[in-house]
Structures are given as structure tokens and as C-alpha cells.
């Protein structure tokens, strides 16, 4: 199987994730979409590593996983706090930080 | 060390005043006054000991500051900067006396803030005239804005925030162009000398090619023209002067604006001689426009402070004209004009301040008949006004006439046109006097306007005495200005034209 197909798949997953971030209101879903974009990137890294026959891409994928894990911790904590104060997980309602 | 000490003294004084506990306002004022008086005496000592033959820098000090860029703490004075330092330091204690009660009732801690800001400003004023390193000059040039910004923004009239911001932005924009030119100058000097330098004497000795000069000149000129202020970069001045307290306005117009004209004579001419000659005709036209524009607008004002501010625009036109005609009479006249204008406009602002504190208004229409209720006060207003219209016998006449004679030697038409400015000066001063001081006083004026107090007299008497004394013995100042002016002429490589008649005796 051609490794380039994995790149296409990664692109599709990234687009879906980006779409999800932009259109969904529920913080959890947005969050999951972000995870999906991260993992799409991971997939691209791994595929690229395979194509170029180097390990750099795989190393980068590990970094992304670590960052994603840290992000999950902070992100979920924020979402939980917002839900507790507002009884809602809609991110549109948390729009006080504006002009 | 004298110059550095002259800068350190007010700064230390400011710190002491500011550190005083709340509730000791009177002590704060007294300390500030004593410190500024001491500085003034130091400056007068310096002025009296200036050489009357040497046009170079004296009292020179130099310490390394940022060696990587060749920046030094270099200070020194020639005759022109010496007289300006003397003028500035004499004005500071006088405006303190005049503004003694300016801010009493605003709030706690403001009194000492007000007075310590004056002292900080004094440090920078001495510094800006004494700096001989262009970078140091730039630092002082910009640093001066800070105390003035607070002085206007905190202690002024109802629109003070607007005025202070306008003043700051104008000055910063000007300063920005100057910074760009300054860096360009550093690079240019690096090309020619091997290492870049900001040292004035080294820069004045450069042989830059005219094209570079013309570009760099503009950056500096813009900054100085905003500061001076010249039409059309003047609109910050009336706003700032009208919103600040009269004491601040005095220092703002009397001293700060002089930095612009001082910069022209001190930096533009010697460092960019070719560019100065190239742009001189345009600048002289702008100056003549300033003379008439300022005077006509002064006639049209309804607000005393704005009137004085616009009269200054007109006076600065004379000063700039005298500088760029580059004759010895023009240059010496302009240098003396800067000093005289400091005193005469200072006196005008201060007396207008007296009127305002009494009547609670700065509008001409609210006055009238003051002469009847407070003849001495009216007399002082008249004297200050006469000095502003350059009555012969007062110092401003000597300088104005020198400028005109110097201009006449350069271009007869320009001088003849500019001479008609003296008619307009008579109109705006005397019409103002007529509307405020003569006639029958209204009831409000009768109730509120009291005769001048001893403290107020103490603030204006020295100014008027100086104005009259310098009118008859201007040589005191001219003796030390003349050699410095000769030096400037040498830098620019210009000579006075001899008289048209062969063998005329001088």
C-alpha cells in the first residue's frame, strides 16, 4: 500500500477535526475534535517518517502525544470548572473575554 | 563637574521632596524652592565665568556610558547653551513662587508631586542644553516629555488629558524621526571614521555627502520644528498651554520649546551645513508664515492662555528665521531672542495665571476694567505685554531687531515683510490689554480681582527687571553668545556680507 494514502487520510481527519472545532458548541466535542486534529498530525508524522525512512517523524509524534496528554489534563480541568460554574458545557456562553 | 552637579542637584531635591511624608506640603515647597534657587545660582555662576572669546565647548565632562555604541555621558556648554541654562534655571524658582498655591486643594500628596516634577524637569532641561553627545541629547529630549506629560495631565484644566496626550504624541512622533536620523548619522559617521560616534564635535567635523545630509537633516528638522513649534506643526502648543497650569505653560513655552530652536542652531547647522543651506529658503518662508500666522491667530483668540501661546508661535518664527539666515546678527539675535522670549513669555503666562486664579476664568470676555480695581496688577500685565511686543528699551527689542537686521542682510524682501509683524504684535497685545484691563469693571471683576500680592510680585519683578536690564545691557549675554555664533558660522562656512559702501567705517 502506498504510504502517501496515509497522508491523505491524515488530511481528511485533520479537516474533520478542524470542522468540528469550528462548528460544534459543546466543549467536550470541541475538545475531542482538537484531539482528532492532533492525532491526524501524528499520523502525518509517522507516515512521513516511513516515506523518508528516517525516525524524526516518529520522535515528533511522541512529542505531540506528550503535549496532547498535558493538554487533556489542563483542558478537561477547565471544561469541568466551566461546567460547574455555568451548568453548561457550551463554549459560546463562555465568551466574556472579548472587546 | 559643575554641569553634572547642576543636573544632580534638582534630581536629588526632587527625590527628597517626593519622599517627604504627607502633611508636610509647606516644607516640600520650601525645599523645592531652595533647591531650584541653588541651581539657579550655580547656573549664573557658570554663565558669568564663560569665556567671552572662546566659542568652543567649556566645562566639558565625558564618561563612558555604552562603549559598544560609542555613547558617552558627555556634557559641556558654549555661550548659547550657557545663556539658555541660566534662563531655564532662573525661570524654575520663579514659576514655583508664582504657582505656590496652584495645587493646594486637589488632593493629598499632589503638592509634593507637583513640585518634585518641576525639579525633575529642571534636571532634564539643564541636561538637554548641556549634552554634547547626540544620544544623550536624544535621551534628555525624550525624557523631558515625562514630567511635562504628568504636569499637564494631572494639574491642568478640564481638557488636560486630551492636551497632555496630544503634546506627548506630537513630541514622540517628532522624536521618532529624530531617532531614525540619529541612527543614520551613527552609521554615516561609522562609514567615515571607522567607528560610529554620537560625539557632537566629531559629527560636526564630518564631511558627509550632501544627499545623505539632506535626508538626515529632515528627521532632525521635523523633531525640532514640532518642538519649536513651527506652523503647521504647532497645534499642540495652544492646547497644551491653555490646559496646563500657567507655571507649567511658562516652562513648556519658555524652555521646552527652545530645545527645538536650540537644536537647530546647535545641531542642524554644524552637522548638516550643506543641507541647512539647501533647505534654508524653504524654512525661512515657513518661519515668515509662522510669524504672521501666529500673530493673526493671537489676535483672534478669546482665551488668554491661547493668545500667549499663539504669540509664541509668532516669536518662534522670528527665532527660526534668524537662525537660518546664518548671519552673525541673525544667529546672535535668535540666541538672545530665546532667552528674552523665555523671560517675557514667562512673565505673560505668570500674570495671566494671576488673573485666572482671581477670576476663575481664562476668557478675555470675563475681564475688563481690571486697571481700576488692581492698578499694579494691570501695570505688570502691561509691562509683560510690552516686552512681548518688543518695545525698544526692553530686551526683546534688541533680539528682534538683531534678527531683522540679520535677515535684511540675507534677503531684503523677507526682512521687510517680517518687519510688518511688529504691527500685528502691537495689535494682539494692546487689544488684549484694552479688553481685559480698561473700561469699567463688571461686578464680578470688582468682587474677585484683588491687587497683586507680595508673593506674586516676587515672582514677576525679577523677570521684568531682567527684561529691562537686558534691554540696555544686552552685551552681558551677547558677549558670550557672539563667540559661539562665530563658531557655528565656521562650521557652516558662512561669513557676513560686508557693507555695500566701500570703506564704510563700522
Amino acid at each position, binding site marked *: 500500500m502506498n504510504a502517501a494514502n496515509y497522508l491523505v487520510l491524515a488530511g481528511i481527519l485533520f479537516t474533520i477535526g*478542524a470542522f468540528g*472545532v*469550528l462548528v460544534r458548541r459543546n466543549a467536550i466535542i*470541541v475538545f475531542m475534535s482538537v484531539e482528532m486534529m492532533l492525532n491526524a498530525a501524528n499520523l502525518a508524522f509517522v507516515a512521513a517518517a516511513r516515506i523518508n525512512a528516517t525516525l524524526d517523524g516518529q520522535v515528533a509524534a511522541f512529542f505531540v502525544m506528550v503535549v496532547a496528554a498535558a493538554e487533556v489534563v489542563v483542558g478537561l480541568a477547565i471544561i469541568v470548572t466551566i461546567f460547574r460554574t455555568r451548568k453548561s458545557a457550551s*463554549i*459560546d456562553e463562555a*465568551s466574556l473575554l*472579548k*472587546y | 563637574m559643575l554641569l553634572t552637579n547642576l543636573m544632580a542637584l534638582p534630581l536629588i531635591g526632587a527625590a527628597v521632596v517626593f519622599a517627604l511624608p504627607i502633611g508636610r506640603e509647606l516644607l516640600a515647597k520650601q525645599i523645592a524652592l531652595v533647591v531650584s534657587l541653588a541651581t539657579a545660582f550655580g547656573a549664573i555662576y557658570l554663565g558669568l565665568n564663560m569665556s567671552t572669546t572662546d566659542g568652543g565647548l567649556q566645562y566639558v565632562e565625558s564618561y563612558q556610558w555604552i562603549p559598544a555604541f560609542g555613547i558617552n555621558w558627555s556634557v559641556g556648554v558654549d555661550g548659547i547653551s550657557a545663556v539658555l541654562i541660566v534662563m531655564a534655571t532662573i525661570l524654575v524658582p520663579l514659576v514655583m513662587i508664582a504657582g505656590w498655591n496652584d495645587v493646594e486643594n486637589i488632593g493629598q500628596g499632589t503638592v509634593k508631586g507637583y513640585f518634585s516634577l518641576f525639579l525633575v524637569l529642571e534636571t532634564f532641561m539643564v541636561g538637554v542644553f548641556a549634552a554634547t553627545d547626540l544620544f544623550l541629547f536624544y535621551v534628555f529630549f525624550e525624557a523631558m516629555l515625562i514630567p511635562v506629560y504628568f504636569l499637564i495631565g494631572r494639574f491642568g484644566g478640564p481638557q488636560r488629558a486630551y492636551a497632555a496626550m*496630544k503634546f506627548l504624541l506630537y513630541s514622540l512622533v517628532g522624536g521618532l524621526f529624530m531617532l531614525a536620523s540619529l541612527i543614520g548619522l551613527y552609521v554615516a559617521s561609522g562609514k567615515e571614521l571607522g567607528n560610529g560616534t554620537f560625539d557632537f564635535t566629531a559629527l560636526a567635523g564630518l564631511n558627509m555627502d550632501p544627499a545623505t545630509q539632506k535626508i538626515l537633516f529632515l528627521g532632525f528638522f521635523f523633531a525640532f520644528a514640532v518642538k519649536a513649534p513651527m*506652523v*503647521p506643526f504647532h*497645534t499642540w502648543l495652544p492646547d497644551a498651554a491653555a490646559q496646563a497650569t500657567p507655571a507649567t505653560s511658562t516652562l513648556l513655552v519658555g524652555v521646552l520649546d527652545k530645545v527645538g530652536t536650540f537644536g537647530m542652531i546647535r545641531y542642524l547647522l554644524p552637522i548638516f551645513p550643506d543641507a541647512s543651506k539647501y533647505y534654508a529658503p524653504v524654512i525661512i518662508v515657513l518661519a515668515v508664515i509662522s510669524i504672521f*500666522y501666529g500673530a*493673526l*491667530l493671537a*489676535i*483672534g483668540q478669546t482665551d488668554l492662555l491661547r493668545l500667549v501661546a499663539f504669540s509664541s508661535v509668532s516669536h518662534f518664527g522670528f527665532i527660526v528665521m534668524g537662525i537660518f539666515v546664518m548671519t*552673525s*546678527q541673525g544667529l*546672535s539675535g535668535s540666541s538672545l531672542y530665546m532667552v528674552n522670549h523665555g523671560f517675557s513669555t514667562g512673565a505673560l503666562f505668570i500674570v495671566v495665571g494671576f488673573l485666572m486664579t482671581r477670576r476663575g476664568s481664562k476668557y478675555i470676555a470675563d475681564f475688563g*476694567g481690571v*486697571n481700576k480695581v488692581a*492698578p499694579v496688577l494691570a501695570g505688570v500685565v502691561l509691562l509683560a505685554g*510690552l516686552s512681548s511686543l518688543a*518695545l*525698544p*528699551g526692553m530686551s526683546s*527689542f534688541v533680539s528682534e*531687531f538683531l534678527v*531683522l*537686521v540679520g535677515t535684511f*542682510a540675507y534677503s*531684503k524682501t523677507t*526682512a*521687510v515683510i517680517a*518687519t510688518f509683524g*511688529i504691527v500685528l504684535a*502691537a*495689535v494682539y497685545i*494692546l487689544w488684549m*490689554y*484694552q479688553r481685559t*484691563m*480698561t*473700561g469699567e469693571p463688571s461686578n464680578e471683576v470688582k468682587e474677585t480681582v484683588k491687587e497683586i500680592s507680595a508673593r506674586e510680585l516676587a515672582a514677576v519683578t525679577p523677570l521684568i527687571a531682567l527684561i529691562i536690564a537686558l534691554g*540696555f*545691557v*544686552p552685551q552681558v549675554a*551677547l558677549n558670550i553668545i*557672539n563667540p559661539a*555664533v562665530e563658531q557655528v558660522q565656521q562650521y557652516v562656512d558662512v561669513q*557676513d556680507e*560686508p*557693507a*555695500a*559702501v566701500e570703506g*564704510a*567705517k*563700522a
Partner: protein
Amino acid sequence: MISALIGLPLAGATILLLGGRRTNAWGHYLAVLMSASSFFVGVSLFSKMLGLEGEERALHQHLFDWIAVGTFNVPFALHLDQLSIAFVLLITGVGTLIHVYSIGYMEHDENRRKFFAYLNLFVAAMLLLVLANNYLLLYVGWEGVGLASYLLISFWQHKPSAAVAGKKAFVVNRVGDVGLSIAVMLMFVTFGSVTFEGVAEAATKADQQTVTWIGLALLLAACGKSAQFPLQSWLLDAMEGPTPVSALIHAATMVTAGVYLIVRAHAIFDLSETARTAVVVIGAITLLLGAYIGTAKDDIKKGLAGSTMSQIGYMILAAGLGPVGYVFAIFHLLTHGMFKAGLFLGAGSVMHGMHDDVNMRHYGALRGFMKVTYVTFGLGFLAIIGIPPFAGFWSKDEIIHAAFGQSTVIGLATLIGAGVTAFYMTRMMTMTFFGEARWEDGVHPHESSNVMTIPMIVLAFGSVFGGLLMLFVGDIEHWLEPVVGFAKPEHHVSNTTLIPITLAVVLAGASYAWFKYGRRPVPVVAPTEVSLLTRAARADAYGDALNEAVFMRPGQHLTRSLTFFDAKGIDGVVNGLAAGIGGLSARTRKTQTGYARNYAAYMLGGAALIAFILYLVRL
């Protein structure tokens, strides 16, 4: 010694102004004393000069170097010669008399001390004007007297008319001062010197055109100070000042400074035919214009002011005739100083007795009530219209004579002027002292006190004998010759024909006035159904209207539109720029919605844009 002349009155002014109310009680005596001692110093200097020979009579006193920049070197030095001493004696002599008179005239004024301080200041400035040895120092005195005149015209500042008149005088004078400035600058640039001596020495070497320009600039200065056409309008308004001021400043001394200037600068005028012609023309116009205005004035002081203009016109005209006229210009100036001061003091005395009413239509038949005033005024009247052997006859006759020598047109102008002078002075005399009483109710005319009448009597002596003394005893022609030069006028018309003609014209003018105002009753209210000519004369020949239309109103428009332009134009651009930047940021601020997804979209868009650019660049 010379500096004491100026120093004494200056000290008086300083003490009175700085001393404040403490000096109220004795201030006027001090001022009189200072002025009188200055006069005695002048007399002693005069007698010293009499002991010397012609050329050596000039005395110098170098006080200090005033301004020295480059080659511009102006000393603060005084110069007393035959010309200056004549002025010194006139200024301090008449000045002292008027000081004395003012003690009585200003007795009830609460600001009498200030008045005397200003008078002293004036005397000092006027002396500086005539004693300076260079044009720039003369300028100091020149504007110094302008300042004193301003202060004294608007002495009663609470009256708006007085305040306006003072300002007007100063501003119009400033226009003249522009001329003086330009002249001094031209002198420096051309001759490298501004001293009288230096200019006179170098003048012959300069080119004709420059000399003419200097002459014209000096003429402009003279027009301002001496109220000559076209800068004459301030003098009539200047009558708002107290009458002694009008006598001293606006008749005897200050307004004649223009004549002094021209005579002093004779070195310039000798060389320029054009400048001299201009001077003569201005003099002729003013002498007729002033006399014409004088014919229609009901205000006694304004009538005299018109007459002053006219008489100075004679002097200016004479000065413009060159070496044949300089001496007579000064001669007429001196005699005029005496009789006109006397006339003004007489007018003041009348006003004093008539409750400060200046309208001659309310006078009449005063000769019985104010005998001293009547006699002294009458003697002054005979002097001014030029009846021999009174002072004015000698000086005016010489001028008319010299004018005919120059040109018949100019000569006729002076002759007509003499006739009109006789008309308006006779009109003034009859309306005031003859005819039936037309006083308003409650007015009780009375003679003034001795302190006022004695100066009038002294000046009347001057009116009677001044001309004779100066011409025959003082030999003024030869006295002034070393300074200004003197040439015998060419006599196209002989004296024996001219004097009878002049006298006939004078008598014709006087009798016409007598028939018009002496024989017929004078209406108390000025008739309104009058000819256009009379109307124009009442309106000062529309001088003010012209000034207003040409300078004031356009000036006001210009000022107003510039003020508008400054606020809306220049400041509009500045504030518009600020508002524009503010508006732009207010709009961009709106992109910060607070919605996380908007930020994400911007990020996405940005990333896509960068990717696209990279893609493009790689191609």
C-alpha cells in the same frame, strides 16, 4: 552732563511709579522739579555752547557699548548739537510749563501721581529721541514717546473711547515704526553704520536708489509719528487724553519728531530728489487736509488737532525743500511749539471753566469771564494765523517763501493753507470768546487758578516774541547751519509782493469766518443740512472709514477665517488622524468576539494563507 538731561525726568518717573501711593502727596512737585532741573541743565549746556565756535559746539557723551554683534556696532551714546539743544530747550521748557499747568488741571484726579510719572517718562523719552547719536537709539526714544503717548491718551482708561484711542495711536505709530526699522536696517546694510555721523559720511558713496529708499522709509516713520497723510487718523482721536497731554505731546513736541527725523537725516534727503519730492507732497497734502478738517470741528480740541496736523504739514513740507527749508522747518517747529501749546492750554482752561464741555457751540462770550485765557489764547491765535510781528508770521512766511521758490503749486498750497488756517482759527476764536453766550444750564464759567494761567502767560510771551527773538537775536539760520546746512532760498517772488499777498489771504480767511460765525448767531446744535464738503470734514475726510474698509474689516475677516482654518483645517487634520486611527482600532477590536471558534477560524485561515503563500513561493 548730557545724560543728566534724560536721567532727571527718568528718575522722577521711576520714583513716582515704583513709590506708589506713598508719593501721592508730593509726587507732582517732584515731577515739576525734575522737569525744571532738566530745563536748567539744558540752559547751562546752551550757554556753554554759546561760548564755543560753530563747529565745535557739538558735545558727545559715550555711555557704553549697547549692541555689538559682528560688524553691527551700536553705542549708547548721546550727541548734543545746535539742533538737539533747540529741541531740549523746547521740550524741557514747554514741558515744565505744562507740568506746572497740570498741577492745577489734574488737581482732582485720583491718579494725578501717575499722570506726572507718565509726563516725566515722556520728557525723558523725548530727550533721548533728540539726544541719541544714532538711529537705533533714536528708535528707543521714538517708541518711548509712543509708549508715553499711549499711556497718556488712554489715561482715563475707564472710558472705552480713551482706551481705544490710545491703542489706535500706538498701532498706527507702529506702522510708521516699520519704516524706521527698515531705514535703520538699510543703513546698516549699506553703510555699515547707524550713527548719524557714519551715515552722513558714507551716504555720498551709496547708490542713488538705496538712498531714495532710505529716505522713503524715514518718511513713512515721520508720517506715523507726525500724523501725516496717510497715517494721520490717530491724532484726532488722541484728543481723548487730558488737555495738557494734547498740548505737550500732540502739539508741541512728540508729533514734531517726524520733522526732527527728516532734518536729522538731511544727509540722506540732500542726496535724493525723489525722496524730497515725496516729503514735500506729503507735507502739502497734510497741511491742506488738516486745515480742511479743522474748519468743521465743533470740538475745540479736535479743531486744534486738525490745526496741528496742518502746521506739521508746513514743517514737513519745509523739510522736504532741502537745505533751503531745514532751518525754517525747525524754526516753525519751535514757534509752533510755543503758540500751539499756549492754544491748547487755553482750550484746557476754557474746558476747565465749562465743566469739561469741549463743544464750541456751547461756548460764546467767554471773553468777559476768562480774561487771562482770552488774552493768551488771542495772542496764540494771532501767532498761528501769521499776523506780524507775532511768532508764527516769521516762520510761516519763510516757509511760504521757500515753497514758492521750489514750485508755484507748492507755494499756492501753503498760501491756501494760510488762508484756511485763518478761517478756522477765527471761527474758533469767535465761537469761543465772542458772540452770545450759549452755555448749558448750570455752567458757570470762571477763570482758572494762577497755577494754570501763569504757564499760559509765559507761552503767550513766546507767541508774541518767540519769532522775533529767534530770528533776529538768536539768528537761527546761522545757529543751525553747521548741523543741517543752509542755503538762501531762490526768490522767484520777492518778499515785498509775497508778504502783502499772504496777509491779504489771511485777512480774507479771517473775515469770512467772522462774517459766518461772528456776525450771525451760532446754532447750539450743529446743523445737519450741510454740504458734502462739511460732512466729509466732520468725518475727518473719511480717514477712519478708509482704514476700516481697507485694513480693519479685511483684517478681521482674515483673522476669523484663519482661526477657523486652524481649528478645523490644521487641527482638523491632526485630530482627524487621531480619530481615524481610533476608529480603525475600534473596528478591528470587533474581531475579538470572545467565541473560541472565531479565534480557531482565524488561526485556520491564517495557517491556510501561510501554506498558500509557501506554495506560491515554491513555484
